[in-house]
C-alpha cells in the first residue's frame, strides 16, 4: 500500500509540542555561552542626513562591550562592483538588489532612508542593558523632506538618491501606449487599484547568533535558505568555506527570510570584528520597521469588452514601491506583468512596470511575491467589468477562460501554462458553496431591506511555482548498516513539514519505516550545496531530488542484494511493504536493509542528486468567499471561504490543507484588515502589533477545501507548489465579496483593506450620486 496520499501526522510535532522548538534565541551551544547581545540603534527619521554620531555616553553605560558605527567598518572588503542600472536600461530580472547609486549600505553612512534603518550596533552583556545603552547613542540628523508614497516618489520633488537624478530605479515590460487595442469595446473599465503594503509577520522575527573561532565564522540564523545566506555573508570578507551557516528551527518566513538582510551580515561582522560571540533577536517593533515587507504596488488598469461579456483588451501598468532600497530590482512587478491576464484568453494584453524608491521599509518577497498582485487585480477588474455589463461574474469568467484543449498555452505576456481546467475548478466551488442559493439569499436580503447584506466573491487563479526550477534542489540519501536512512536536503523547512514529507518519499521507495528515516536540512557544513525554500518549490524540486536519490540508492542496493543472494540482479526485488530484499518467487529468503548496507563499501549506500526542472509549473483553482456587510456600519464579516485547488497529486493531505489554510488567512487578512501605514513625514504608524491588525481566529471562519489532482510532467512526483495558492486566490475572492455585497448601491471598487470606514464611505459616496 502506498504511503503517499495518506494523512500521516507530522514527525516534527512531539518535540515542538512538549519541549518547544529550538529557535535562535533558544540555542544553548557552548560556543554561545557568554555571547553578547546586539541592539541596533535605528533611524528615528524617514529621510535625513547624518551629521554626527556620539557614542560616548553609551560607552559609559553598564554592561556595554562596544558601540559599532560605520567608522569601525575598516576591516571589510569593498562591495563588489554592482551594475549601475539606468531606468531605461533595466538589469536582468533576477531577485537581486540594485547596486551603484541605489546600493544599500550595511550601516547607514551619511544618509538614512527609512525609519528603522540601522545606524549603529550596541553590544552589551544583557538584553536590558542593550536597550538602555542604545537610547544613549546620540545621532545628529539633518532632516530632509520625506518621500512617503509612490505618488511622492513619482513627483520627484525630493530624491532619495540625488546622484540618480530620479526616484524611478527600474522600468520594464512592454509598450502600453497603443490605445487602439480598446477600439470597438462596448464597455471599458479604467482606474487605479492599490495593492497595499503589508507585513510578512512571521511569529519569530529575524534572529542571528555568530561566533568567530579558529578562522571559521559560524552563523546560526533564522532563514529560509542557509546556503544562500552563506553566499551573502561572504560580504564580511571571508570565502564561503570559512563560513558555516545553520538554520535551527525557524518560526515562519513567508518570503521575508530568503537569505539574510544587512542586520544579519552586521551581526556576523560584529562577531568577527570583536572576537566575541554575538546574538541578536529582534523585537516586534524592529521587525515591523526592519524586516522586508510585501506587495506595495499601485496598478493603473484598463479593460474593455463587449456587452455579452467577451473581454477584448487589458492593460496593466504597475508601479512598485521598493521602499528605501531596491532589494529585488524589477523582479516583483515583472512577475506581476507575467501573470497579468491570469486564467483568461484575452486577445490583446499590454503590461509594463516601473519601480520607485520611497522612504519606507524595503519591499521584497511575501507569500506569492508579485503573483498575488496580478491575480488580485485581474480578478477584481473582471468583477468590475461584469458589474458594468450587468452580467454575473461566473458568466464572464466562463466566457473568457483558457479552455482545456488550448494547453499548453502561452499567454500574451509570455507565461507558458502547462495544464489547467479552470471551468471545472470553478464549477466545483460553485456547487459546493451552493452558489445559486446564495445568490437567492443575497437577493432576498436586499429586497427585504435588511441591513446585513451578503456578498459573494470569486477568484479563479493560475500561479507560477518553482519559477527558478533550473536552479533545482539537492538531496543526499544514505542507508546505513543499522538499516536506518538519512536524507540531507537543500530545501529548508520552517513549518511546512518537510521532514514528514521527505521521510514519506523514502518510505515509499525503500520500504524503510518512517521512524527510521532522519531528515536533515539547514547546515552548510553538512549540506554545502542547496537552494532553499521559497516560490512553492520544495516538494516539486527538493522532494523530486529525494525521490530520485532514493531510486539511485535502491538501484545500488539491488546490486549488493544480488551479490549476497548470489543471484542475478534481475531476480532480486525490494518488498517495500516489509522493507526487505527478496529473490523473486522465493518468499523464504530475504535480506534486511541492514544486511545489504553492511555489505556495501563503508557500510553505507549513498546517492547524491541535484534535481532540476526545465520549466515551472502552473497550479490553478477557484475560490469563493461569502461575506456579510453591515451597510449601516461598513463592518465586514467573513462567513465562508470555499476553495478548489489543483497542485497535482497530493503527497500528504494534512500538510497540503495546512498550507492552504495559512495562505487563505493571509489573503483574507490583506483583503480585510492588514496594512502598513506611514504618515506624511514617513513615520510608521503600524510598528507594533497593537497598531498592525494581524488577523486573528475571531475574524475567520473554518475553511471548506476541495481538491483536484492534475499531475504535471515536469517532475517525477507530478506535483506542483501549494504554498502560495492561498494568498493568490483568497485575496481577490474576499475582496470581490465585499464589493459584491454593495454593488447594487452603485459601488464599483473599494481599495484593500476593506475596513468598516472605507466600506461605509464608499456606500455614502455611491448613494450620494
Amino acid at each position, binding site marked *: 500500500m502506498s504511503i503517499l496520499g495518506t494523512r500521516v*501526522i*507530522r514527525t*516534527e*510535532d*512531539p518535540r*515542538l*509540542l*512538549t*519541549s*518547544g*522548538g*529550538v*529557535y535562535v*534565541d*533558544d540555542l*544553548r551551544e557552548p560556543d554561545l555561552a557568554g555571547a553578547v547581545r546586539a541592539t541596533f540603534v535605528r533611524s528615528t527619521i524617514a529621510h535625513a542626513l547624518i551629521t554626527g554620531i556620539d557614542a560616548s555616553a553609551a560607552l559609559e553605560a553598564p554592561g556595554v562591550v562596544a558601540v559599532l558605527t560605520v567608522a569601525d567598518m575598516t576591516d571589510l572588503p569593498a562591495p563588489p562592483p554592482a551594475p549601475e542600472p539606468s531606468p531605461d536600461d533595466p538589469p536582468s530580472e533576477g531577485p537581486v538588489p540594485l547596486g551603484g547609486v541605489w546600493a544599500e549600505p550595511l550601516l547607514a553612512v551619511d544618509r538614512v532612508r527609512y525609519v528603522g534603518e540601522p545606524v549603529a550596533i550596541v553590544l552589551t552583556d544583557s*538584553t*536590558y542593558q542593550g536597550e538602555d545603552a542604545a537610547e544613549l547613542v546620540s545621532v545628529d540628523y539633518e532632516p530632509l523632506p520625506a518621500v512617503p508614497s509612490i505618488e511622492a516618489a513619482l513627483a520627484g520633488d525630493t530624491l532619495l538618491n540625488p546622484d540618480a537624478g530620479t526616484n524611478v530605479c527600474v522600468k520594464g515590460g512592454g509598450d502600453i501606449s497603443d490605445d487602439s487595442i480598446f477600439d470597438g469595446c462596448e464597455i471599458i473599465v479604467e482606474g487605479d487599484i492599490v495593492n497595499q503594503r503589508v507585513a510578512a*509577520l*512571521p*511569529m*519569530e522575527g529575524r534572529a542571528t547568533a555568530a561566533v568567530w573561532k579558529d578562522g571559521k565564522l559560524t552563523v546560526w540564523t533564522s532563514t529560509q535558505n542557509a546556503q544562500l545566506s552563506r553566499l551573502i555573508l561572504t560580504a564580511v570578507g571571508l570565502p564561503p568555506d570559512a563560513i558555516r551557516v545553520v538554520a535551527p*528551527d*525557524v*518560526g*515562519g518566513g*513567508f518570503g521575508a527570510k530568503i537569505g539574510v538582510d544587512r542586520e544579519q551580515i552586521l551581526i556576523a561582522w560584529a562577531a568577527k570584528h570583536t572576537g566575541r560571540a554575538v546574538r541578536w533577536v529582534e*523585537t*516586534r*517593533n524592529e521587525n515591523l520597521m526592519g524586516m522586508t515587507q510585501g506587495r506595495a504596488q499601485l496598478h493603473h488598469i484598463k479593460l474593455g469588452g463587449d456587452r455579452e461579456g467577451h473581454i477584448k483588451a487589458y492593460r496593466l501598468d504597475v508601479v512598485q514601491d521598493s521602499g528605501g532600497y531596491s532589494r529585488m530590482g524589477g523582479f516583483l512587478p515583472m512577475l506581476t506583468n507575467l501573470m497579468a491576464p491570469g486564467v483568461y484568453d484575452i486577445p490583446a494584453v499590454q503590461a509594463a512596470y516601473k519601480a520607485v524608491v520611497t522612504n519606507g521599509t524595503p519591499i521584497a518577497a511575501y507569500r506569492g511575491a508579485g503573483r498575488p498582485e496580478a491575480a488580485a487585480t485581474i480578478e477584481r477588474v473582471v468583477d468590475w467589468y461584469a458589474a458594468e455589463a450587468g452580467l454575473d461574474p461566473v458568466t464572464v469568467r466562463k466566457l473568457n477562460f483558457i479552455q482545456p484543449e488550448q494547453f499548453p498555452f502561452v499567454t500574451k505576456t509570455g507565461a507558458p501554462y502547462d495544464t489547467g481546467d479552470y471551468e471545472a475548478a470553478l464549477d466545483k466551488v460553485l456547487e459546493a458553496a451552493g452558489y445559486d442559493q446564495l445568490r437567492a439569499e443575497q437577493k432576498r436580503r436586499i429586497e427585504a431591506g435588511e441591513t446585513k447584506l451578503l456578498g459573494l466573491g470569486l477568484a479563479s487563479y493560475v500561479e507560477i511555482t518553482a519559477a527558478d526550477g533550473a536552479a533545482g534542489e539537492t538531496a543526499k540519501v544514505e542507508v546505513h548498516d543499522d538499516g536506518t536512512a538519512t536524507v540531507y536536503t537543500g530545501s529548508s523547512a*520552517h*513549518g*511546512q*513539514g518537510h521532514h514528514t514529507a521527505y521521510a514519506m518519499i523514502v518510505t515509499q521507495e525503500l520500504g524503510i519505516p518512517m521512524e527510521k528515516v532522519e531528515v536533515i536540512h539547514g547546515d552548510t557544513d553538512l549540506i554545502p550545496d542547496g537552494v532553499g525554500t521559497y516560490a512553492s518549490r520544495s516538494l516539486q524540486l527538493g522532494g523530486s531530488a529525494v525521490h530520485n536519490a532514493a531510486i539511485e540508492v535502491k538501484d545500488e542496493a539491488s546490486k549488493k542484494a544480488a551479490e549476497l543472494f548470489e543471484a542475478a540482479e534481475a531476480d532480486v526485488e525490494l518488498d517495500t511493504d516489509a522493507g526487505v530484499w527478496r529473490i523473486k518467487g522465493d518468499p523464504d529468503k530475504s535480506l534486511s536493509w541492514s544486511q545489504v548496507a553492511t555489505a556495501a563499501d563503508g557500510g553505507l549506500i549513498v546517492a547524491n542528486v541535484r534535481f532540476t526542472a526545465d520549466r515551472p509549473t502552473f497550479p490553478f483553482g477557484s475560490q469563493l468567499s461569502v461575506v456579510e456587510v453591515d451597510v449601516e456600519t461598513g463592518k465586514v464579516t467573513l462567513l465562508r471561504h470555499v476553495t478548489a485547488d489543483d497542485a497535482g497529486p497530493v503527497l500528504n493531505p*494534512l*500538510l497540503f*490543507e*495546512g498550507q492552504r*489554510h*495559512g*495562505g*487563505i*488567512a*493571509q489573503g483574507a487578512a490583506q483583503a480585510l484588515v492588514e496594512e502598513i501605514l506611514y504618515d506624511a513625514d514617513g513615520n510608521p504608524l503600524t510598528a*507594533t*502589533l*497593537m497598531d498592525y491588525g*494581524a488577523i*486573528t*481566529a*475571531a475574524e*475567520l471562519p*473554518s*475553511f471548506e477545501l476541495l481538491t483536484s489532482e492534475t499531475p504535471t510532467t515536469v517532475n517525477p512526483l507530478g506535483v506542483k507548489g501549494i504554498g502560495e495558492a*492561498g494568498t493568490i486566490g483568497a485575496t481577490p475572492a474576499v475582496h470581490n465579496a465585499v464589493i459584491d455585497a454593495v454593488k447594487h448601491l452603485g459601488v464599483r471598487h473599494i481599495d484593500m483593506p476593506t475596513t468598516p470606514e472605507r466600506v461605509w464611505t464608499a456606500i455614502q459616496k455611491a448613494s450620494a450620486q
Partner: protein
Amino acid sequence: MKVELTVNGKDMTADVEDRTLLVHFLRDVADLTATNIGCDTTSCGACTVLLDGESVKSCTVLAAQADGRAVTTLEGLAGDDGTMHPVQQAFHEEHGLQCGYCTPGMVMAIASLLKENPSPTEAQVRQGLEGNICRCTGYHNIVKAALAAAESSNTGASK
C-alpha cells in the same frame, strides 16, 4: 530583588533585576525556552503561561508579580510519564501547528480556555483565542484541535 516561585512544580529562588519580566525569568533564569516572545505588547500570546492555573501573557507580568505563585509552562504540561496533555495530543493529531513558534502559547491558552469552558462552541474557541496570533495555520486546525481536545477530555479517552 529576590523572587521565589514554583515553576512546573519545582521551587525556584533567584535574585533578579526589579524590571525582569516573567518571560525572561522563565527563559533566562529557569532555562525553560519553550515559552517564546512574539510582540512585547501583549498582543500575540506567544508567551502565554499559566499563573496559578490561569493563562497570562508572561511578557506583561513582572517576575516579581509571580513571587510566591506557581507557574506552568509548556514543558510542565505533559504527564510525568511523558503522556501528552489532551491539548498537545490534539494539536499533533489535527496538524494544529506548523512552524511551532506560537504553539506553546496557543496550547497553554487553550488548556486554560478548556478549564473555564470544557465544552466550547467553535465561536467560543475563536473568541477565546483572539489574543493569540498564528501566522501559519490560518487557525483552522488550531480551532479543530481545541474542539477535539475538549471532546477527548470530556469523554475521558484520547483517540
